[in-house]
């Protein structure tokens, strides 16, 4: 926990420029790898993130219904745009791969039009693999009725392990 706070403080103090120059090395287990058209990396052609790095990014809380949850839980995690900024992504599509090799493409435009987050927590609790963690794409379904359809439900991938930025 203290580590997280320090990391967040560092992010704020160092600012975007420091991050843009280079990504820090993950200290914990890598849960997300970004590849493709990105300019900031911390490995050969890729950007690896542990939970602490993700939690250090600008985040959002989204309270919404989903077809896979009872009630209206509160999801929290880094904003999609923040993540893309962090890696200096230059592309129009994100190809997302889940732990079970489920693959889905999300237009980058979605992330700009809607406050899409890569949720790491549900109701304040970190999501395990059994609980569709560690990362879950959450659109604000309850905030925008236009999102409540199969198209966006399909893009709401869970158990994400890799994001490829492509054209």
């Amino acid at each position, binding site marked *: 926990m203290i580590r997280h706070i320090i990391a967040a403080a560092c992010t704020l103090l160092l600012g975007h420029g420091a991050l843009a120059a280079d990504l820090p090395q993950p200290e914990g287990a890598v849960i997300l790898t970004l590849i493709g058209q990105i300019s900031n990396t911390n490995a050969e052609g890729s950007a690896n993130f542990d939970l602490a790095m993700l939690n250090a990014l600008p985040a959002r809380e989204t309270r919404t219904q989903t077809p*896979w949850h009872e009630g209206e839980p509160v999801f929290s995690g880094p904003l999609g745009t923040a993540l893309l900024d962090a890696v200096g992504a230059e592309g129009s599509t994100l190809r997302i791969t889940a732990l*079970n090799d489920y693959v889905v493409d999300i237009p980058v435009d979605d992330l700009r039009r809607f406050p899409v987050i890569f949720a790491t927590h549900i109701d304040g609790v970190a999501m395990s*693999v059994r609980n569709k963690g560690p990362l879950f794409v959450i659109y604000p379904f309850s905030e925008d009725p236009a999102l409540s359809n199969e198209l966006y439900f399909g893009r709401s991938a869970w158990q994400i392990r890799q994001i490829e930025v492509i054209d």
Partner: protein
Amino acid sequence: MTEQRTRRASARVPNGPVIIFLILVTIGLFAAMTQLFVGLYQNQNAVAWSVREDAMWAAFQADREAARLIEALRVAQREPTEGNISQVALRFDLLYSRALILEQDSYAIKFNGSSPVAEASAAAYASIVLLDPIIAQTSAGPDPFLTQIGTLIVLAVATQQATGNLVLAANSALNEARVNERNEIGRINARLALGAILIALLFVLIVVLQSFQLNQIRRSRREIERLSERNALNAQRAEAASLAKSMFLATMSHEIRTPLNGIIGTAELMNDADLTLSQAENLAMIRKSGEILLDVITDILDFSKMEAGKISYQREPFALRTVMEEVSAIMSQRAKATGLTLDLDVPTMTLTTDPARLRQILVNLVGNAIKFTSSGGITVKAWLATPTLLRVEVSDTGIGISEQGINNLFQDFSQVDGSASRRFSGTGLGLAICKRILEGLDGQIGVRSVEGMGSTFWFDLPVTDAATFTGDEPTVQTRPTTMPLSELPSARLRGRVLVAEDNDINRKVAVGLLTRLGITVITAVNGAEAVAMAANEQIDLILMDFQMPVTNGLEATRQIRAMGLNIPIVGLTANAFIDDRDQCIAAGMDEFLPKPVTREKLWKTLKRFCPVDVPREDVIQSIDKVQFDVLIEDLGPEVVAELLVSYLSDTEALFAEIETAMTHADRAALDRALHTLKGVSQTVGLSHLAAEVQALRQIEAPNSKDLIEIKGLAATGLAMLSNVLNQTPTTPFLLDQTYLTKTA
């Protein structure tokens, strides 16, 4: 026509309500369909929600993860490396996350609570959960893993069997749900289609009915148009018929008046002939009947002229009293004959309205009052109710009118009741005429009456320029201007009169009447002849008929005036109308005489133009013809002749007595003689003489001059009586001429 209309009406009745009913049904159907659509929409939403996560997909994923777990287990069995063992843990975590989804309530809902799916789902979940503690044990390292691997594979295979069953159950449930859903959609579609068809049908029906109604409206409008056209035509025809009727009445009235003039005139002529008393009475009856008939015809003529709209009003300034007195003059004779008094209470004033119409109304009202009054009197009162409204009231002491009678009193051709109409003759048009006249002059007429107590007819006549005089004109009581017929024989006119008249009878009557009046008469049978005679002969006056062949009266008058002759010309016409009067004055005539021509009318008119020969005014009134006629009737002419002889000798003696008494100033003897003279004079009908003698008795000292006067009265009176007696067809009574010379 009636049948047609009835049929149309019966066809028309249900349309409106039916259309309203249909519209209501349509609205109902719309509501039902809207509800269907809403249901469909909601259903769609639910379906959408339900397919958010394809349940089938979830089952399949679970099955796939189970298979991959078995695969990972076999790999780890062959090569029990740490990486492979942790791969087993990840695979199990993924399978477990699938199990959690299967366990969620919403998953069951997706299959509509289908029990085979729920059972299979529960079995798969249970099987997965069963693996959890063993997997947890294997995370310690390769050894514990290898000890459990056999169990793990058995359980994983069992799990895949369970998830396989779940896939099959989900698939069949999904198929069933699809079929159900399709059926449901089919049903909804069928219902929607039915609703749409019904609405379409209803629309068609409404349109058809409305076009029907439109058609009917158009038809009835056409019918109304046709009806109104027909009504207009009918009204036109009725108007034309009414006009024709009025014209016919006017013509007929005129045609009837001409021979009637002959009848009345001839009766008048006969009156001068030697007649027995009963003949005279019959003649009087003829005359009276003729006059009534004439009144009736005049009424009808007036009324029909009003109906035909041929009446005009001529407002001019005049003296109210003059008009009132004219009326009084006309009517007082009739009133007196019935023993009634006729009093005027009229202020001296001039005002502007139509005097002829005022006269006509008054004659009507006073005539009515006389007709319905047997005793008492009639009073005519006039005053200005406001500076521009003349109020006139004609009150009588007659039979009065019942309340109901008042209500239909002013209606055309109305008489108060059957019994009254039996007792009182008349057209019943008089009051209707009065009402019309007053309406024409913006006035009002009304009546107050108590049955048996008399009536008061009033009318309000708008006037202008009313000016009251005090003193300029003396207030005169009723004065008779008509001379009693019985007194006329003594009056004589002098002059030479030209009678221009085409009708044979009327000409003869006029000639006869004029001759009786002492006039020398020459005649012409048309206007041209009259003009020629006026130019060549010495004529004092011309009586000119209006309607004559060759040249009519008006034209002839114009020609005579054009020649510069100012001989008095009196127009004669059967149309007693203001228009005619105006026409004749405009043509240059001096006077206008409505037919029938009577001696009375001739006397009244001609005496203004011709010199009158009257012995003395008082002599004219000196005999009581009624009394004398009664005598003749009762005693016979011979006895009356003897009576006159004895009266002659008696009066001679009485005059001697009176003279002696005067000389000796013996008042008692004088009075006794005068009293006797009065008595005998009254007996024979010398009423005036009797009155004079009575007056003499009141005088203190009558002298010989008075005696000479009464002697004169006696002489003339007796001469007149003998005249009358001479006209009876008996032995003529020859008055001793010496008596006259003696007394004169």
